[in-house]
């Protein structure tokens, strides 16, 4: 037996592909939630701006299906392949990276990766983009503390327990709790980033802790919106502060309407476009991987705390073509991944 049948010689030629030869692939979990839908829309917008089409792949939040799609994709023509991938979990990143590296496909990953896996060690894994979950968890934690006047009980709705995003954000909350010693974490439950689960869990926690609950910290906006419904059904709408993360349109509306306190923007439209843009620039030779600053190979993107004051600015997600010019692709770097 011999190793690696499929692979041809894959020393990634940084020589430029023709723009028309570039194949753009965006892969997210599904098309049935607003965040990922906006991601794919952003990807489409970018592809259109360079006269191409984005191939959309979705894997239903199913890790194995994601791997299966990637390996099938890499078994095809990979010469000018650019992938902007949202790995389902940390553990899904290494095989994707290794596969792309072997096949010489240009890869940008977002959100999830194990800490010790670094783009800098690979030739065609150009960049990893994420938001600082600890920071966002802390920011909304602080905003929540302020909203309830610095003292009182809160409950926390966690995301899918085995994801880095859920863990980081919760770590941020814990940091915030340390700072705001008046705030007490009454309870924390997993609601798996799901609106429906958040609804039931919140209702239960509300009966458990009654009027002691002054605030609800949710690890994403979907759960925050579920919590809002629960409050409404419990007749407590407006009496309990709610914060989330992601800045999905409904959450912005809720903030504008005063129902929600704060969220943190993670710009799905931009993410969908920028991953492809970076890959496209490298594939067409306008950018050289070697030239990319080490800090830009794995970075936190800028995020903003959204409150009632600035919510209007985030109401309409817009993609700005200027962001995608090869000189500007790293404009939103907030700092290297730590």
């Amino acid at each position, binding site marked *: 037996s011999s190793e690696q049948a499929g692979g041809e010689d894959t020393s990634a030629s940084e020589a430029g592909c023709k723009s028309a030869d570039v194949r753009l692939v965006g892969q997210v979990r599904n*098309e*049935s939630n607003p965040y990922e839908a906006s991601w794919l829309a952003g990807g489409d917008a970018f592809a259109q701006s360079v006269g191409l089409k984005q191939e959309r792949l979705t894997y239903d939040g199913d890790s194995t299906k994601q791997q299966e799609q990637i390996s099938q994709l890499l078994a095809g023509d990979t010469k000018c392949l650019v992938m902007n991938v949202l790995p389902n979990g940390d553990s899904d990143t290494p095989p994707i990276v290794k596969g792309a590296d072997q096949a010489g496909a240009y890869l940008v990953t977002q959100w999830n990766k194990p800490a010790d896996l670094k783009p800098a060690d690979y030739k065609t894994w150009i960049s990893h983009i994420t938001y600082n979950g600890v920071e966002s968890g802390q920011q909304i934690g602080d905003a929540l503390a302020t909203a309830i006047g610095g003292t009182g009980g809160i409950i926390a709705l966690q995301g899918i327990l085995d994801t880095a995003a859920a863990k980081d954000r919760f770590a941020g909350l814990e940091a915030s709790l340390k700072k705001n010693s008046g705030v007490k974490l009454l309870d924390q*439950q997993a609601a798996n980033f799901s*609106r429906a689960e958040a609804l039931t869990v919140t209702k239960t926690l509300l009966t458990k802790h009654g009027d002691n609950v002054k605030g609800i910290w949710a690890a994403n906006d979907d759960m925050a919106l579920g919590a809002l419904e629960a409050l409404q*059904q419990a007749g407590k709408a407006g009496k309990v502060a709610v914060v989330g993360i992601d800045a999905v349109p409904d959450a912005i509306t809720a903030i504008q309407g005063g129902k929600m306190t704060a969220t943190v923007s993670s710009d799905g439209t931009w993410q969908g476009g920028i991953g492809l843009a970076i890959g496209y620039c490298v594939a067409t030779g306008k950018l050289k991987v070697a030239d990319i600053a080490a800090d830009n190979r794995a970075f936190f993107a800028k995020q903003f705390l959204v409150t009632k004051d600035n919510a209007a600015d985030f109401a309409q997600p817009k993609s700005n073509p200027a962001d995608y010019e090869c000189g500007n692709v790293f404009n939103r770097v907030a700092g290297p991944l730590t």
Partner: protein
Amino acid sequence: MTAEEVVTAPRRQSRRGASFRDAGPPVALIVIFGIFAALSPQFRSIDNVQNIVDAAAVLAVVTCGITFVLMMGSIDLSAAGVMGASALTVSLLVANNRNDNDFGLLGILVAVLLGCAFGCLSGLALVLLKVPSFMATLGVSAIGLGVATLMFAGVQPNISDAMLESWAIERFLGFAYLTWIAAACILVGWLIQRYTRLGRYAYAIGGAEEVLTLSGVRVKPYKIAVFTLAGAFYGLGGVMVTSQLGAGLVQAGDGYDFSAITAAVVGGTLLTGGRGGILHSAVGVLLVMVLTNGLVQVGVSPYWQGGVEGLIVVAAVAAAVIPQRRRNQVVK
């Protein structure tokens, strides 16, 4: 013959109505409720009991539907897809932020009918293509999710229909309207099961399908009708979830398929068909909800909750079957 009478007389009493072998699940419910009540004062508060019952509403409706299918000895995994499609449909037809529709009740009706249509599709696949229901409904679920995704088209539809929103919020005698809707569904389900040919035939199909054919009953239309009926319940379930969440979610029905089957089986409905029924399932739903709620109330770590729940479900079913154990009994 006197001997025969002597022997058979004592058995007569248990022939009609519920026998004591059906008592397992209610007893388990009471025991588990008692344990949680003893462990946690919040658990036994009126508020929490209301909360448990309210939280059970959607599951109860979905379980009503699935019970009829299980009674026939078939299985139905289409709830997730059908509910997703119906949730999107209703949220796009009542007043919402995506379009100018405002059909109110009519929209709800259409969503329920869509559920019927999907159910009918499962039934047709089973009856005409002879695809086992496990697969037919799994396929229909995928189709439902696909249809829902198409309708979703990237933007979350939020409802602003006053009536639909009020279902989840307004209360009557302490329970949300949704809970009363669920109660009505259980009542209707029970009436169907007991007083209609459809319900009795569903039960009979689970007992001995081939015999019905021998007796000149055409089984196929009833099978399709049962799946259609189940689809209607799922459709309504999707509407109820939409009311609760204030938005039409493709994932509205996530997990309801297996929870509903669990609830039905825990309540004493056999997966092989021919036994159990709506009231059994209602008990099963309460049991499952008491468990989920109770585990949160007594503060079991979120990491362990699923596991503890699984363990208790198995233990409850095991305890419930003890009185009916026989040496040569078939358990599948």
